[in-house]
């Protein structure tokens, strides 16, 4: 779908995605495999329910004590030799990182996967400042070459086929066409090795930070995370303020469930625990290390009904199990974070104003809550977001009026019965053999793909009362 202009509304993007057969096949295959791998991995985890409870507690406790933990984290990081920066907004974070690059006379930057940097549009800011930035995570690298955006938290190019990737690399890198993933990864390895070796600065996110020790934990498989934190002379970490746990024991709890939920591995190939720039006597590692702590709406989320969503550990499991995500893919969500978590986080960070369609696009089936390794109650938060939308954004007139009418009549049984009988009579006009093929007004959306059963002539209540009264009369 790269190169094609994205429709501007959620519904437009969803509609486009629903008619994209290639996307469907790719999503079905990928999400089914990831679900099955996660399931196997969790089955093999001893006492997995208890482990999930402990992981949840680690994250929720951290959020409850976030002020103290942030202060402790900053102190430990500073003791370890890091410079700590605080950014109110996305633009502030980008400015800080551009300044760090300027002060360190950085020209080339190698980036390991960071969703927060997508959130702030960091690459565009770096490029505007005249810096060369290359994404080094294979999926992100391909996305960068395609001038597109990732569509899944764990598998950035889940929406692309191997043929599409092969053609893209041929066009962009001038290499011979191949659709063999091994060959394609080999092209990326060769190209990016040169980048790792000549980068002045490495930028990463942080899967989780540990306040007690000032540790930044990176969970990766390819080795690019290690490369960009080992070879360049400057390392910058960009992380949301919520990505903390209190202790190394809490880190262990999160690590027990993160990879299992994301990819079905016990641990990814590399779990990197960084504790500052190189020490005396080290032959590698950055000379200077910076940690940029980003708010960008997180404190607003923390103060509201959906504070819990900040406990997300970005495993992507909810995407793999969500029937809505599986049908529309990640780009339809229109922003950094797709799927059930994105439907809460995006309006949470950006404001409900432009994003009310996201929490609406859910049947509240609860599969996400069931699968979440830290048991986030996403359905409850979706309803909370909808409540915020109702208070703060315009609703269709028929809906607002309809809800008021519903509330008024449903609390007054005689009125309710009258309205129900009238409505029923109107609908029965359109029915043949008890079924309606084209319903009027908003109900017309129902009949685009389903027949609508015509309301009964006599409600259950009426029939029940008359039958029981008849029995009493006979008795």
């Amino acid at each position, binding site marked *: 779908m790269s190169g094609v202009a994205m429709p501007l509304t959620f*519904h437009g993007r*969803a*509609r486009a995605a*629903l008619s994209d057969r290639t996307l469907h096949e790719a999503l079905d295959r990928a999400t089914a495999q990831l679900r099955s791998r996660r399931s196997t991995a969790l089955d093999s985890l001893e006492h997995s329910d208890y482990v999930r409870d402990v992981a949840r507690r680690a994250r929720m406790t951290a959020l409850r004590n976030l002020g103290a933990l942030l202060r402790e984290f900053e102190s430990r990081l500073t003791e370890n030799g890091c410079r700590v920066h605080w950014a109110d907004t996305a633009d502030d974070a980008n400015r800080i990182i551009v300044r760090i690059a300027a002060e360190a006379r950085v020209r080339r930057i190698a980036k390991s996967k960071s969703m927060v940097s997508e959130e702030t549009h960091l690459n565009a800011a770096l490029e505007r400042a005249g810096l060369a930035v290359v994404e080094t995570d294979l999926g992100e690298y391909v996305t960068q070459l395609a001038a597109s955006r990732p569509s899944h938290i764990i598998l950035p190019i889940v929406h692309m086929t191997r043929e599409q990737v092969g053609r893209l690399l041929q066009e962009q890198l001038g290499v011979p066409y191949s659709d063999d993933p091994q060959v394609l990864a080999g092209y990326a390895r060769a190209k990016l090795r040169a980048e790792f070796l000549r980068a002045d600065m490495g930028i990463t996110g942080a899967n989780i930070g540990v306040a007690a020790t000032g540790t930044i934990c990176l969970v990766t498989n390819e080795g690019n995370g290690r490369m960009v934190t080992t070879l360049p002379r400057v390392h910058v970490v960009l992380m949301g303020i919520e990505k903390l746990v209190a202790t190394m024991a809490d880190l262990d709890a999160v690590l027990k469930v993160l990879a299992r939920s994301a990819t079905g591995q016990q641990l990814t190939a590399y779990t990197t625990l960084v504790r500052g720039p190189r020490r005396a006597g080290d032959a590698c590692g950055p000379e200077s290390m910076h940690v940029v702590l980003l708010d960008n709406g997180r404190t607003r989320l923390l103060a509201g009904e959906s504070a819990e969503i900040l406990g997300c550990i970005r495993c992507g499991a909810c995407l793999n199990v969500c*029937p*809505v995500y599986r*049908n*529309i893919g990640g780009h339809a969500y229109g922003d950094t974070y797709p799927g059930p978590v994105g439907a809460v986080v995006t309006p949470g960070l950006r404001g409900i104003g432009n994003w009310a369609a996201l929490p*609406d*696009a*859910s*049947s*509240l*089936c*609860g*599969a996400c*809550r*069931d699968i979440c390794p830290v048991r986030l109650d996403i359905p*409850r938060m979706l*309803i909370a*977001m*909808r*409540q*915020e*939308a*109702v208070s703060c954004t315009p609703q269709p007139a028929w*809906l607002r009026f309809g*809800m*008021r009418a*519903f*509330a*008024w*009549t*449903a*609390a*007054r*049984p005689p009125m*309710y019965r009258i309205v*129900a009988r009238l409505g*029923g009579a109107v609908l029965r006009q359109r029915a043949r053999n008890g*079924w309606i093929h084209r319903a009027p007004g*908003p*109900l017309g*959306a*129902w009949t*685009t*793909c*389903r*027949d*609508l*059963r015509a*309301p*009964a002539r*006599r*409600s*259950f*209540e009426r*029939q*029940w009362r008359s039958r029981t009264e008849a029995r009493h009369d006979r008795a």
Partner: protein
Amino acid sequence: MPTSSIVQLVPTCLVNDLDPEVGFASARVLARMGFHVEVPRGLTCCGQPAHNAGFADEARAVARHTLAVLADTTGPIVVPSGSCADMIVHQYPWLFEGDPDRRDRARAVAERTVEFSQFLLQQPPGCATCGALDARVAYHSSCHLLRGLGVTNTPSLLSSTRGTTVVPLEDQEECCGFGGLFSIKNAEISGRMLDRKLSAVAASGAERLVSCDLGCVLHLEGGARRRALSVRVQHLACFLDEALG
């Protein structure tokens, strides 16, 4: 009449106006099990459509009324709908968080509230639910029943019916796409989810599709009709009633 055998049947708004037979079937099955069925007077709706759509004030207005009606009854409150039962059991305490008096009454009512199949499964085995019906049946678990209320063994009511074979569905536990107003506000996505579910049903070889929520039933049945599928979609209460003869 021993009071321990009185149950309150909450038909639900959809059953009341769209398919009263489900209410009668539920009442007959309960009566066959020896319960005396009462239907509380003045019930309209549990308020879920407003609650799910984020209209909290409207939801509370409706729920206050329903709560008052139910609190004034005795015995188990049996609801032939997983989503309505979940609304009362889990969402009412949340809705009335800031209203201590109603919150306590909501908790008391929630404790008595049980979904229809859940209630049947709580009864001692060897009771009058075991009828006979020759059929290949697929079961669709409504999401609120399965995940909200945690009721996973409803299919045993089908398989214990003599002559009934329960056939598995691919992606058995996936949402059918009804989701209340979701089916209207997000009709295209809802329709796609419906397609997947009906394809799975067609591939399963089932003659009947049984579910515990009339919302799911209407959505699946309406879809089956539109696609001219031969599968018969039924609420569980109607199936068991038919099996009991």
